């Protein structure tokens, strides 16, 4: 009991300097947005992109927390589900009906993947699981290109192309829509985890598998449901990437790297950190791209890599993660 209590206090503690830095960043963004309309536009666009990174990062963190596995196929699973959504709209469904149905399919897909290929290797080494997810990556890529072809596809724009003008600042309705949908799905997930019995059981299964199974929680099923939920988040990220990147089998590969960087920035174990990390990274990349002329579009990925590396070396726990203490 005492061990549990100690762990939870360590987990909840966010250090003061980090809170201070976050507040400073927020003030900087607000002041900058008020003084320059380009800054404001880039910030909002960055927030929208960052929300997409954040949802995929959250998917990674959900799985990592439960099983200490990083799913390299997370982005490709989201990409495949986006194609499913595209196919549904081709069959005449309206966008939002297709969207909802796609999320349901994504959930089943995630559960099936966990049951069939992940569960058998789960208790082996990290390398074994990583390689299985890598195999999944290539397999999904091949299947999607096989069915739909590798050329660009276009879905109907879900949010239209209107632009709102507030003073001299132009906000794309699409950016606001992407931001809204991503944030909404994250909040729904948080509610599920925090306020439902299923969420409680899932948290228990992730935190203390042995104890959870002793009180009657089916840990294996909770893990499978976790994969299902992560797959839903990946599908949201994919569908929200589509309006800017369009549909192609490689659409999520860069997003996956950004999501990795975001998850590490926030602390691989912290769901809130993943979303925060995603948003920060999205805004940072946009502003740096706007104001530092050396950083052209080719350097966006290397910059994300640099962020990831710096965080890993300087503060491996990330912004909101707890410090890793290991006994030897």
């Amino acid at each position, binding site marked *: 009991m005492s061990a549990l209590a100690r762990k939870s206090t360590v987990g909840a503690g966010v250090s003061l300097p980090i809170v201070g830095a976050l507040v400073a960043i927020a003030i900087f963004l607000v002041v900058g947005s008020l003084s320059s309309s380009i800054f404001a536009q880039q910030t909002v666009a960055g927030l929208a992109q960052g929300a997409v990174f954040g949802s995929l990062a959250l998917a990674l963190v959900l799985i990592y927390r439960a099983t200490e596995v990083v799913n390299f196929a997370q982005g490709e699973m989201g990409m495949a589900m986006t194609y499913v959504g595209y196919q549904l709209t081709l069959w005449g469904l309206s966008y939002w009906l297709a969207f909802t149905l796609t999320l349901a399919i994504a959930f089943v897909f995630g559960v099936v993947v966990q049951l069939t*290929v992940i569960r058998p290797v789960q208790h082996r080494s990290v390398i074994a699981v990583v390689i299985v997810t*890598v195999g999944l990556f290539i*397999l999904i890529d091949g299947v999607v290109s096989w069915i739909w072809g590798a050329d660009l596809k276009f879905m109907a724009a879900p949010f239209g192309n209107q632009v709102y003008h507030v003073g001299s600042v132009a906000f794309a309705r699409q950016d606001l829509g992407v931001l809204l949908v991503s944030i909404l799905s994250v909040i729904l997930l948080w509610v599920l985890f925090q306020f439902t019995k299923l969420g409680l059981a899932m948290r228990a299964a992730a935190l203390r598998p042995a104890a959870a199974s002793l009180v009657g929680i089916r840990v294996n099923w909770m893990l499978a449901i976790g994969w299902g939920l992560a797959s839903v988040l990946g599908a949201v990220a994919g569908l929200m990437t589509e309006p800017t990147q369009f549909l192609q089998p490689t659409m999520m590969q860069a997003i996956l790297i950004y999501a990795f960087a975001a998850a590490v920035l926030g602390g691989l174990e912290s769901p809130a950190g993943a979303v925060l990390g995603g948003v920060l990274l999205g805004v940072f990349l946009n502003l740096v791209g706007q104001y530092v002329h050396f950083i052209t579009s080719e350097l966006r990925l290397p910059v994300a890599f640099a962020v990831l*590396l710096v965080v890993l070396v300087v503060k491996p726990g990330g912004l909101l993660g707890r410090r890793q203490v290991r006994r030897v």
Partner: protein
Amino acid sequence: MRAARHSRLIVIAATVVVIGLLPSTMDGYHQGLAARVAIYFIAILGLNILTGYTGQISIGHGAFMAIGGYTTAILSHDHHMNLLLTLPIALAISFVVGLLVGLPALRLSGVYLALATFAFAVSVPQLALKFSKFTGGSNGTQTDTSFSHLKLYVVSWICAGISLVLAWLLLRGRIGRAFRATRDSPVAAASSGVSLPIYKTLAFGVSAAYAGVAGSLYVIATNGFAQPQEFGVILSLQLLIGAAVAGLGSLWGVLAGAAFVGLLPTISASVPLIGSAHGQDVVFGLMVILIMLLLPNGVVGLLAAVGRRRQARS
């Protein structure tokens, strides 16, 4: 014991003879294909030294291949250097880069190292695009001379042979023991006087040097073209898969891993129905998952298990 040693020598001699005689029975296309297996062999061997012997995972070895490959292409294109002479330079440069990458890797392990090296693999081709004056951008750089299929085959397999011998010499002695000690128990290794930082970084450097040489040959094998898309993430993933198929920590399985990665896509392409570019990916991904599910220790693990069963029966 001695019988086992003799039979192993016979197997080695037979392998060498087969590889030596093979090109006379093949046309140019198949010689090129077989050379590709040798190239994968070198790269996977390097990765296996790192991942199998020191336990540091890397999903970034395609990037080291890119560094070796670009070294060869640029030296040949801009300075008209003999292709064979570029190999040791590619080796040296990738060794140094490997040491540099190994330094931050000291603080990372497991999943974190996998993520960092993966991001490294993604970043290097982007850097080649960015500094296009130097690398030729998305068009790439082409070497100004090229090898015939037969010469490529001979050079690649000789390099593979040298690599294997060097790896064996390196791993059988003091350094190999130190590598394994850092993998199995870092604490025990450190307390017996094995310097973890030195050996871990060294493993990264050696492993990158192997990948660099493989990258040079890889560029020569693709008509001398070094292009960013040739060294994409998929290449790094293939190397890791090859090492897993080989069975981590075993030198002899590497041949099987290299053959798997180098030949399976081509073989599955010649099968009707699935014989499209995307069909290859489907087969490849499926095989990877099946092998991981069914043969947890790679091909060598399977052979060892069969051997144990036969011994138990007799």
